[in-house]
């Protein structure tokens, strides 16, 4: 959100020190952000729309720890003793599954939400390390297809730019039912970003505030989805893997239903997953944390006897190799990153501090992706701003970051005695808090207690 002063008569902002010296007390219920939200709503009469994902604190991977090997288990040595990281996605029905070198993939982000340079940089970075990148709500650009070795083509309710030629060019198709930031909500793209090119790709008037459908126009529910998946397989001659992406709310049922409908891969996006533009009330109050979603999705796959046969990709708040390893230990086959990838490209870089301040934000806080005025040139369609992001340099930064995530995850897997990342298992984890223990279904550290299970 953008902070704007709505009380001109108020004294200049106090420093934290002055506040402390005066003994001022901030309300836990009506904290400063809440007060600003109310003031903004009263002034404008429209709900706040912003980017990023849930900012509230929820139980997360930080609340889990690995049990490294010592005496009862043996660790692997680095270098010589291999710890493989590759993953095959979509070999259930598709004749051409994806074989990626790292389980860290790039989540769907649209051209429109992101600049063409940012999309190109994502493709370059992902291809350099042998992983996939994903289109978004706005079609496939030639730059993106050209730079992406493995490109996942999203099939969304809006069907902007959807066409069979691109469908046949895709390495995988991701049928999107929802995303973690807004399960049950459609896309949004505000007028500032609907330039001529974006409008052309989406068949929309230039400069309008675009709202996407929240349901698919020609199917509803798993019974129809099975037929829809059949159609997409027929069109692509059963070659292309078909993913189904859900926003985490009822992942146990949704995963089981996606599998029954015939998905090759299920993508579960937790509530910390990002968005380009959504109502803040939606982002913060709908969906469940990634940590809580994984065991439910894995349980569904296990009960169907298809765990690791129908692959599970998890996204929403993946930042480090530890997060990657924890997601995989809980049963994911791969993860996807969105927000972290944008940060790697240069989003929220302190070198733009002055410009963030001019926009009423600050480096580390900037989330007004909907406005299209991103100083880092990523979430914008403005030619001057976009040109700040060099797609080659950005791609290199992303590739570096992806390598670090992979090596960090490998480090942990080796310490747990695994010769492949996918051999990590829940029994390698303990939880630091009761909440995380109950959600992740691993014991509280130092005990054998899992609330609700033991």
């Amino acid at each position, binding site marked *: 959100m953008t902070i704007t002063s709505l009380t001109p008569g108020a004294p200049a902002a106090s420093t934290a020190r002055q506040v402390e010296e005066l003994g001022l007390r901030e309300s836990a219920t009506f904290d400063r952000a809440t007060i600003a939200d109310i003031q903004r709503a009263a002034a404008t009469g429209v709900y706040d729309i912003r980017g990023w994902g849930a900012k509230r604190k929820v139980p997360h991977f930080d609340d889990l720890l690995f049990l490294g090997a010592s005496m009862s288990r*043996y660790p692997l040595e680095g270098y010589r003793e291999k710890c493989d990281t590759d993953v095959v996605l979509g070999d259930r029905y598709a004749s051409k599954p994806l074989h990626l070198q790292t389980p860290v993939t790039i989540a769907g982000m649209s051209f429109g939400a992101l600049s063409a340079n940012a999309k190109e940089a994502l493709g370059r970075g992902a291809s350099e390390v042998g992983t996939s990148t994903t289109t978004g709500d706005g079609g496939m650009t030639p730059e993106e297809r050209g730079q992406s070795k493995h490109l996942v083509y999203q099939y969304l309710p809006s069907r902007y730019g959807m066409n069979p030629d691109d469908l046949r060019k895709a390495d995988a198709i991701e049928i999107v039912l929802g995303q973690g930031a807004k399960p049950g909500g459609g896309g949004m793209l505000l007028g500032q970003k609907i330039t001529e090119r974006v409008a052309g790709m989406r068949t929309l008037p230039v400069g309008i505030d675009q709202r996407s459908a929240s349901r698919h126009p020609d199917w509803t529910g798993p019974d129809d989805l099975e037929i829809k998946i059949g159609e997409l397989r027929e069109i692509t001659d059963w070659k292309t893997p078909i993913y189904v992406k859900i926003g985490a709310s009822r992942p146990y049922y949704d995963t089981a239903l996606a599998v029954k409908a015939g998905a090759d891969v299920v993508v579960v996006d937790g509530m910390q997953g990002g968005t380009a533009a959504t109502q803040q009330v939606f982002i913060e109050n709908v969906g469940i944390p990634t940590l809580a979603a994984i065991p439910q999705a894995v349980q569904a796959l296990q009960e169907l006897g298809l765990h690791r046969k129908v692959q599970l990709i998890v996204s929403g708040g993946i930042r480090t190799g530890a997060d990657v390893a924890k997601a995989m230990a809980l049963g994911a086959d791969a993860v996807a990153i969105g927000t972290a990838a944008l940060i790697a490209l240069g989003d929220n870089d302190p070198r733009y501090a002055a410009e963030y301040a001019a926009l009423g934000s600050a480096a580390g806080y900037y989330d007004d992706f909907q406005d299209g005025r991103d100083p880092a040139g990523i979430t914008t369609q403005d030619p001057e701003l976009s040109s700040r992001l060099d797609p080659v340099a950005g791609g290199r930064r992303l590739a570096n970051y992806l390598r670090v995530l992979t090596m960090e995850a490998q480090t942990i897997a080796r310490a747990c005695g695994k010769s*492949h990342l996918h*051999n990590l298992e829940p029994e390698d984890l303990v939880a630091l808090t009761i909440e995380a223990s109950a959600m992740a279904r691993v014991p509280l550290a130092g005990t054998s207690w899992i609330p609700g299970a033991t």
Partner: protein
Amino acid sequence: MCGIAALQLRNPRLHPQMGSLLSSMMCQIVDRGPDSAGLAVYDTPGLVSKGTATLSLLGKDQGMPVGDIIAALETLLPLSAATAVRVVGDTTLVSAAVDTGLLVKAVSETLPGSTIIGRGEHVAVMKSVGHPMDIAAEHGLEAMAGSQGLSHTRMATESAVTAGGSHPFSVADDLCLVHNGSFSNHATIRRGLLRDGVVFDSDNDTEVGARYIASRLQQGDDLETALTNLGKVFDGFYTLVVTTADSMAVVRDPIACKPAIIAETADYVAMASEYRALASLPGIESARIFEPEPGKVYTWSL
């Protein structure tokens, strides 16, 4: 964490010495696993006999006098089966001239609290908690004849120190498996086998290996293929010895940290965790002695 000694006697003239040779081997690996021990012996006269199924039950006391057990089993089995029960050390052996499955069913009905630790026409399995040589002596290993013998001394890692958690794990007819090391993804593999309807007796990682091999053999793998498949699925560290009615196999994980040494002559194949266990075998000076290669499956047949 564990010691292994295994012996396959190719020359029938050595069969009478099976127990004494295995006992001498086992004596050298006690330090590796002083918690508990287990033995499997094949074709030992007095314990098993051809055409008869024998079940090995954990413990000498089954909570019922031997005579009563026989009487109860006879009501469930044909009279011609010549049902017999005998106690050897801390092990109860039940035999009858019927199919193993039928005998398992009758014993489970008669002695619902019993734990079956071995089954088949050729093998007898004995396990207990305590010093391995005391266990060997209690069972009279020294005097046993036989075609193959397998012994294991255990230092428990992540499962309980109980006789039930001791190796060998014998989960299909005449099949035994012993393990030195630690599987690092056994919980996941166990979940998969449970889904396939496999029933487990313990929370031991080695049992997962034994159940996996039994399941592969049931699906038509030969022993070598089953162990090759195990190598694709199991992660972690292991030296395994697997015996069947007529063969013995040794395999180590690709990193091969856990020790294994093999001595092969025209008369026998012997495998142990350490050379000192092989040192007193007859003709050892002219045997071919080697350490098994990482990730390679070795099999020998009688």
